[in-house]
C-alpha cells in the first residue's frame, strides 16, 4: 500500500469511514445475537476497503446501488449510523420508516438507490440511473456494488452489455469475497477472474486488491474519469473476503479455517493503520481519537434506535403508491 498520493488527513478520513462500518456491523451483529433486532443481517466486516475506497473516489452527486450486504455501502456514501440502526430495529425513525429493514436501506438524497434483497438486482438499476444522467447531460455517474455470486445472474450480462453499447457513465464494481452464500466462486465459474468478462462487452476489466483501500480508490477514480468523459463503463473486480457468515448465525462450515485466518491477516483496517503509521508516525493520537469518536457515534446510534418508537399501525398501508392507497384492502 503506497500512501504517497494521499495526505495524512485523507488517510485518516479513510480510516474513520472504514472504522464506522466495522464498528457498526460488529455492534449490529452483537445486538442481533442478543435477539434485540428483527430479520436477518449480512455484515460487511472484512470488505470495508471496497465501499470506502470506491465512495471516496466518487463525487457527492454520484449515485450507487448496493446489495443485501449493504450497510457498508450506505455508510461509505455518507449514510447516518443512527438512522440506519433505527431501520435495522424496525423503528419509525429509520431510513425507510421501518418498512425496509437491513436489506432495503436507501437514502436517495445521498445518491444511495437502495440496498437490495434480490441478488444482482442493483446492476441494471445502476445502468438505468446512468442512462438518466446521460440523457439529462449531468456530470454524475453511478456505481453498482455487487458480489461474485451476483456476477452469475443474467442481469449482470444484460446490464453490462447495454451500458457498454450505449457508453453509459457507470462503474460495475464486483466485490469478489469468494463465496456466493455457501458456494465457493471456484465451483460456479470456470475462470479465475470475473474481470475477464469485460472482454465480452468491449470494456476495460480491472482486477484490484479489495483489501487495499488506496488501490480501490485509484481504480475507481480511473473508472470514474472514463465514465465522466463519456467513454463508457468499466468492470472492476475487487478481490476481498467476508470475515463473518453470509448472514449472522451462519456457521460457515463451507469455509476452511486456514482460509479465514489467512484473510484476517490481510484485514483492510489493520493494513491502512500500518500504512498511516509508517508514513505519519505522529498520527497515533489522531487514530485513537477517531476510534473514540466512532465508538461514540455507534453507541449513540444504538441509543437512538432503542429510544425511537415503532411505526404507527396506520402507516402499514401508506407508501404503496405515490397517491394515498385507496385500494388497501381492509382485513
Amino acid at each position, binding site marked *: 500500500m503506497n500512501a504517497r498520493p494521499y495526505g495524512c488527513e485523507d488517510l485518516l478520513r479513510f480510516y474513520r469511514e472504514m472504522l464506522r462500518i466495522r464498528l457498526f456491523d460488529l455492534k449490529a451483529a452483537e445486538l442481533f445475537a442478543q435477539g434485540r433486532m428483527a430479520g436477518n443481517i449480512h455484515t460487511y466486516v472484512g470488505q470495508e476497503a471496497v465501499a470506502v475506497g470506491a465512495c471516496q473516489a466518487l463525487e457527492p452527486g454520484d449515485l450507487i446501488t448496493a446489495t443485501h450486504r449493504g450497510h457498508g455501502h450506505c455508510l461509505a456514501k455518507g449514510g447516518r449510523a443512527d438512522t440506519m440502526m433505527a431501520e435495522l430495529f424496525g423503528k419509525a425513525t429509520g431510513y425507510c420508516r421501518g418498512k425496509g429493514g437491513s436489506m*432495503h436501506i436507501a437514502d436517495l438524497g445521498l445518491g444511495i438507490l437502495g440496498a437490495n434483497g434480490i441478488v444482482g438486482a442493483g446492476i441494471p438499476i445502476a445502468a438505468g440511473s446512468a442512462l438518466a444522467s446521460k440523457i439529462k447531460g449531468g456530470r454524475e455517474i453511478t456505481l453498482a456494488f455487487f458480489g461474485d455470486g451476483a456476477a452469475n*445472474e443474467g442481469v449482470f450480462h444484460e446490464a453490462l452489455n447495454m451500458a457498454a453499447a450505449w457508453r453509459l457513465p457507470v462503474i460495475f464494481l464486483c466485490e469478489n469475497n469468494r463465496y456466493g452464500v455457501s*458456494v465457493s466462486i471456484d465451483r460456479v465459474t470456470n475462470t479465475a477472474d470475473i474481470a475477464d468478462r469485460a472482454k465480452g462487452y468491449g470494456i476495460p476489466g480491472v482486477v484490484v486488491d479489495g483489501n487495499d483501500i488506496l488501490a480501490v480508490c485509484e481504480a475507481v477514480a480511473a473508472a470514474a474519469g472514463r465514465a465522466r468523459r463519456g467513454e463508457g463503463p468499466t468492470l472492476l473486480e475487487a478481490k476481498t473476503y467476508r470475515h463473518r457468515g453470509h448472514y449472522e448465525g451462519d456457521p460457515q462450515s463451507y469455509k476452511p479455517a486456514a482460509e479465514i485466518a489467512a484473510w484476517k491477516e490481510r484485514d483492510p483496517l489493520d493494513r491502512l493503520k500500518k500504512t498511516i503509521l509508517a508514513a505519519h508516525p505522529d498520527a497515533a493520537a489522531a487514530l485513537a481519537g477517531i476510534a473514540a469518536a466512532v465508538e461514540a457515534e455507534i453507541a449513540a446510534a444504538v441509543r437512538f434506535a432503542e429510544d425511537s418508537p415503532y411505526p404507527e399501525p396506520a402507516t402499514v398501508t401508506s407508501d404503496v403508491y405515490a397517491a394515498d392507497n385507496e*385500494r388497501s384492502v381492509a382485513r
Partner: protein
Amino acid sequence: MREITFSEATLEAMAEEMARDERVFVMGEDIARQGGIFGQFKGLPQQFGLDRVRDTPISETAIVGAGVGAALAGMRPVVDMHFADFITVCMDEVVNQMAKIRYMFGGQCTMPLVLRAPDGIIRSAAAQHSQSLEAWFVHVPGLKVVIPSNPADAKGLLKAAIRSDDPVLYFEHKALFPTKGPVPDGDHLTPIGKAAVVRPGRDLTVISYSMTMHRALEAAETLAGQGIDAEIIDLRTISPIDIDTIYASLAKTHRLLIVHEAVKAGGVGAEIAARVAEEAFDLLDAPIARIGAPFVPIPFSPALEKLVKTTAGDIVRAAQQLCR
C-alpha cells in the same frame, strides 16, 4: 404415529424418491454444502453424492431452465428456488417453458419437474423474502401447485410431485420447516388435487392451506367453545382445486370463509369465491368471507409485519360474523 418435522419429512421424501429412481436429482443454491438454508437438504449429498445434489451458480433462469431441459432429456429434476420470491427472476422459464412445453408440442413430451419454493412470512425477512405468490401460478394452465401445511402432507405431496409427469410447484412455508407432526411410516403419498377435511363441522366451512391452516385449527377450537362448529378444509393442492370437496362441505354448512396469508386481492380465495358464487350459489346462506393480507408489500418492522399476518382471532371474528 412417529412425529418428525416438516423439514425432515421433505428430506425423507427426497431421499426415498432419489433411491427409488435414479433419474431424480436436485439442484439449487446452497443445497449441497450447506444443506439448504432451512436445513431441508441436510445429509442428501452424503447419501447421493454431489452429482445428484448440486450447488448451482446464483442463476435462477439457468436453474429452472436447465431443469426443464433435463426433464425433456429424460431426467426427473427437482429444483430449489431458495426463496419463493426469487421465482420472479425466472418467470419465463416457469411460465413460458415449464408450463407450456408439453401442450405446445402437442403432447410429445412430459415435464416431470418439481420446483420447490420456500415462501411466507418469517421473522421480519421483509418485502423481498416474505411473499406468498402461489396465486400467480394458479392462473397458468399447465402447472400444478401444491402447498402442504403439515409434515405428513409435506412428505406425501413432495413424493407425489416427484412422481408426477406434470410440472409441479411445491410451496413450503419457511416457518413450517421446524414444526413437528405425525407422519405415517413407509411409502406415504398424498394425492395431488385432493383436499382434506381435517376437522368435520356443521356450522361453517373454513378453507385454508399452508401456515394459516394452523390458525384456522386454533380458531376452530375457540369457536367450538362458543358453540360454533367449524368444518376445516386443508386444500393442499391449489391447482387443480378440489372443488367437489368444497361443495360437499358447503352442502352441510352453507357458510364459507377462505383464509390465506397471501394478499387477499386476486388470491386463491378470490378464485374459490368466484367459483362457488357461479356454480353453487344455492348452497350459501350467507355472503362468502375472505381473509388475506392487506394490499401492501410485507413490511420489515415487527410492529408493521404483525398487521399483515392472519391470526386465529381474525378467523374467529370472521366466523362469528358469518354465523350470526
